[in-house]
């Protein structure tokens, strides 16, 4: 019952999964959050004692600017304390915390999402003139030449990227699209940067091997494959790497 509620009721959990899920719940944090959202002043004081400094510290680290960090933290702070709705009932953002991870980690994630949302909403307001001033170009996509070896190479790369696993695509996206460092990716996956480096290296070798196999299957000779891969610059190909990496297989979801 508890596990089903916490998981959002989106999937059927096995008994072992229910035990694991309930066993991992941060009960103390969850109790504190519930007491705060219910308006318990003693709990709110305890919350402030524990989380006020980490909350503001995290906001500064996220925004890298003291004024913006304070503004972001103040905003969340008010939402955590809660507002009275039209029925006079106090509504706090802490109601959404379900104890799956630590409360401190949850606060950091909420801050990060608010920061990203705010940044995105502001960046959407940039005018076309500003984009042109900033050097953003707008051009029609070139027509694909579907006969040459470059086209076959593009097809092979796109097909190979599409068959990668989720974690492999996550690594590629983080490294090549987001330009994250090894250390940053490592932090996100709780892995050492040397492990990320090793996995990326293995992934590159695997991609190269599979692309070569596809090219061979498409009728290219060994020498032609070598020449194509040696001269390969994916930017010259008509492959939308970002879109290819976004492909998702439908899996049972826990998202709410």
């Amino acid at each position: 019952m508890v596990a089903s509620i916490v998981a959002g009721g989106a999937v059927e959990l096995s008994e072992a999964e229910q035990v694991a899920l309930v066993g991992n719940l941060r009960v103390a944090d969850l109790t504190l959050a519930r007491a705060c959202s219910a308006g318990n002043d003693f709990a709110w004081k305890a919350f402030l004692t524990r989380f006020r400094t980490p909350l503001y510290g995290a906001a500064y680290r996220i925004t890298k600017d003291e004024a913006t960090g304070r503004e972001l933290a103040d905003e969340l702070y008010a939402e955590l304390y809660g507002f009275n709705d039209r029925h006079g009932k106090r509504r706090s953002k802490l109601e959404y915390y379900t104890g799956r991870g630590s409360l401190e980690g949850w606060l950091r994630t909420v801050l990060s999402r608010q920061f990203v949302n705010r940044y995105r909403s502001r960046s959407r307001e940039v005018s076309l003139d500003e984009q042109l001033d900033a050097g953003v170009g707008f051009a029609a996509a070139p027509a694909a030449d579907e006969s040459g070896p470059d086209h076959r190479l593009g097809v092979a790369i796109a097909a190979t990227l599409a068959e990668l696993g989720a974690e492999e695509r996550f690594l590629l996206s983080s490294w090549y699209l987001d330009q994250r460092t090894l250390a940053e990716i490592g932090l996100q996956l709780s892995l050492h940067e040397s492990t990320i480096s090793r996995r990326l290296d293995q992934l590159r070798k695997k991609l190269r091997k599979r692309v070569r196999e596809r090219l061979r299957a498409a009728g290219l000779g060994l020498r032609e494959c070598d020449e194509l891969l040696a001269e390969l610059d994916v930017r010259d190909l008509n492959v939308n790497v970002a879109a290819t990496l976004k492909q998702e297989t439908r899996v049972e979801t826990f998202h709410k």
Partner: protein
Amino acid sequence: MAGALPHPDEDVLTAFAEGALLERERESVMEHLAGCSECREILSLTAAAAPEATVLHVVPTGPTQKRWLPWLAAAAAVVLVSSAALIYVRGREINGLPQQSPEIAVQGIGRREPDSARPDAPAVQSAEPMPGLATSEAATGNSETVGRTHWRINEAGHAERSLGNGTWQAVLPNDSARIRVISVSGSDVWLGGEKLHLCHSNDDGATWHCEQLPTKNSSASVLAHIRFRDLQTGVVEATDGTRWETGDGGRTWR
């Protein structure tokens, strides 16, 4: 496409970052993250905002260093203390910026790879400073020079500590497995080494609890990395990439 799945909420993302999701959930979230730059951005910011646990990799004293004169060792100690103090001061002055690891500071190789080198870089281990890395004294927030605990691994593979008086003492019996990595966070100290041996002290090395991690379906035998997000949640990794995770401060590993 990424839009096919709704964004995971803060609860799920936090649990993902802390390794607290069920395997099925983790796969589902990873699938979403692979295609959603917005959620990757949030995850990255969240990870960077965490006051990370200390991971200290100490380079064992090599045979060639035995030939060095004793005064060189003393000079190295001065450099180490100065670097640690510098790291500490920088960490206080530059709020939110990553601190430099003592190993990197001492060796002087803490340079970030140039962006232009990125496509070919994965094969090379980055020497970029790890966020939150610091010596034990920095981790405890103690600015006193005397009385701070220093840690090292000696040439025999034994973990040693010094209380700042220049005297090094082994903290485990001599017949213990060789230690390969030390992780320090405040008064919590973790040692990992050969034969999957993992030791933990929560009183700055005064008392220890040692155990052998359960073997997995791999040939892993040497622990190489220890990283704790907080006192409860951590990951230990062997040289071949095999991982063990804990969410209860090391009482159980999976």
